[in-house]
């Protein structure tokens, strides 16, 4: 059954269209990825889903409810949590404070405690870093903290914008492991990536975006062998990522 349906979505920045006539469906508990080059409109799609950007056309339906144009706090309340591109941690604050902010809408101390336990189950190492300034950690640790912060609100849908960007291969493998772990707990994951091989290996279904329009979609295993995808995003068959 369809859990999330994006219908004919159109987003503009001023007069410039960023995304046009986008249609996406996600089943509950699935991992769906969106591939595309820089500036194809991937981040815009996630930002619009999370409520940061208002769409110009179309609808977003979550679990049967029309949530188009709702502000970010209403989306968090409905279980949608975005880990944004570039991580956007509160660099001057401690890891603990960042996580606490992730549970801002949670029911006080209880929500914070259970959120912390959940995050430590994915990222045991964050526990040792709690009182460190978030900005002083390595890129990989910051990414763990950013995903952890997004998980603090106990989401039903996790939106990940370029989680592997700028990470060492070993950390990319770690991100992949964590996405699988989070998904295994029943959380629907929508992942946007430039690292197409990583994204397709993690996903059940994939969409390919070029200059704001969908050009391909299909089961991830099919896309992995698709000629167009291989030529444009996988750089032929030779290169291997340590995602597996």
């Amino acid at each position, binding site marked *: 059954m369809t859990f999330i349906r994006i219908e004919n979505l159109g987003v503009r920045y001023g007069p410039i269209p960023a995304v046009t006539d986008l249609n996406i469906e996600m089943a509950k508990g699935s991992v769906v990825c969106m591939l595309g080059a820089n500036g194809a409109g991937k981040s815009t799609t996630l930002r619009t889903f*999370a*409520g*940061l950007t208002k769409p110009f056309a179309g609808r977003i339906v979550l679990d049967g409810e029309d949530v188009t144009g709702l*502000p*970010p*706090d209403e989306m*968090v*309340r409905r279980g949608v*949590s*975005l880990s*944004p591109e570039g991580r*956007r*941690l*509160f*660099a*001057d*604050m401690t890891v603990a*404070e960042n996580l*606490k*902010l*992730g549970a*801002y*809408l949670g029911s006080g101390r209880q929500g914070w405690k259970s959120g912390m336990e959940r995050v430590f189950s994915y990222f045991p190492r964050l526990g040792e870093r709690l009182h460190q300034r978030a900005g002083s950690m390595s890129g990989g640790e910051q990414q763990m903290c950013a995903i952890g*912060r*997004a998980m603090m*609100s106990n989401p039903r849908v996790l939106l990940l914008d370029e989680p592997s960007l700028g990470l060492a291969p070993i950390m990319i493998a770690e991100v992949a492991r964590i996405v699988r772990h989070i998904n295994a707990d029943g959380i629907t994951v929508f992942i946007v990536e430039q690292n197409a091989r990583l994204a397709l290996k993690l996903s059940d279904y994939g969409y390919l975006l070029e200059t704001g329009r969908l050009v391909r979609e299909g089961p991830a295993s099919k896309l992995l062998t698709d000629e167009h995808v291989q030529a444009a995003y996988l750089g032929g068959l030779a290169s291997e990522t340590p995602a597996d």
Partner: protein
Amino acid sequence: MLQLLTQIGVNGVMMGLVYITMALGFTLIFGIMRIVNFAHGEFYMLGAVALMFFYAHFGLDYFVAVFLAAACVAVFGMLVERVLLRQFVGRELNGMIMTLAIAITIKAAVAIVLGPQEVSIPRPVTGVITLGGILVPNDRLLVGGVAVVVLSGFYLFLRFAPAGLAMRAVAQDWEAAALQGIRPQRVYLWSFGIGCMLAGLAGALMAPIYTIGPYIGTVPMLKAFIVVILGGLGSLPGAVVGGLLLGLVEAGFATFINTTVATMISFGLVVAILLVRPAGLMGNAR
């Protein structure tokens, strides 16, 4: 000599605490909303005027009157934010012109209602205490004491309260804060209210020591400006360091030379620090 220096230190810290109270609100508003609040001096003045009514006219207890005055200024500030400033968040130049217009309007309105003259009100405490040869006027001690309590409370609020955490988050990255479920608009409203409350508090505290009139906000505003430039615009620790520095420098030069020179030197200090550290002592270069 040591005693003289200690005396200067005490005078400087007493004055510095008032500067900090004033500057902290100013820098808080800038740090979170990117609005340079040129009306900050007018909120100081409104605090003094409100205290005059509550304390001198209605005869309320001094502490109750200070509390009410600060609360009134906070509510008025929130009203101003909601109606006039909301759309200027993040637009520094337009916001600056808007707050300038608000400042002139408030000043003129008070002058029309109360007249342009400056009045004095009775001091809640008088006399001087002597501690090991150091003289401290009781009224200054009272002002310093209240400032320390309020500033400590404000620090604990920012450090530990969820709302304080939300304020710091919005100051650092309002979009990332919004993604956590924080409503930036609500944070702007409260931050502006708290900033104005601190200005009103400073005005209410200083009212019995100085005179009260529509134009008394100008000098404290200028001092707050010096303090935040010294410390770094938008930096809260910077406001504390800058406030103490300004208080001490002024007290020192006022004692050894005179107050005119002290004022000149404090501006000279701003020029010097801006040349060496353009972002201020504790500011982040952007």
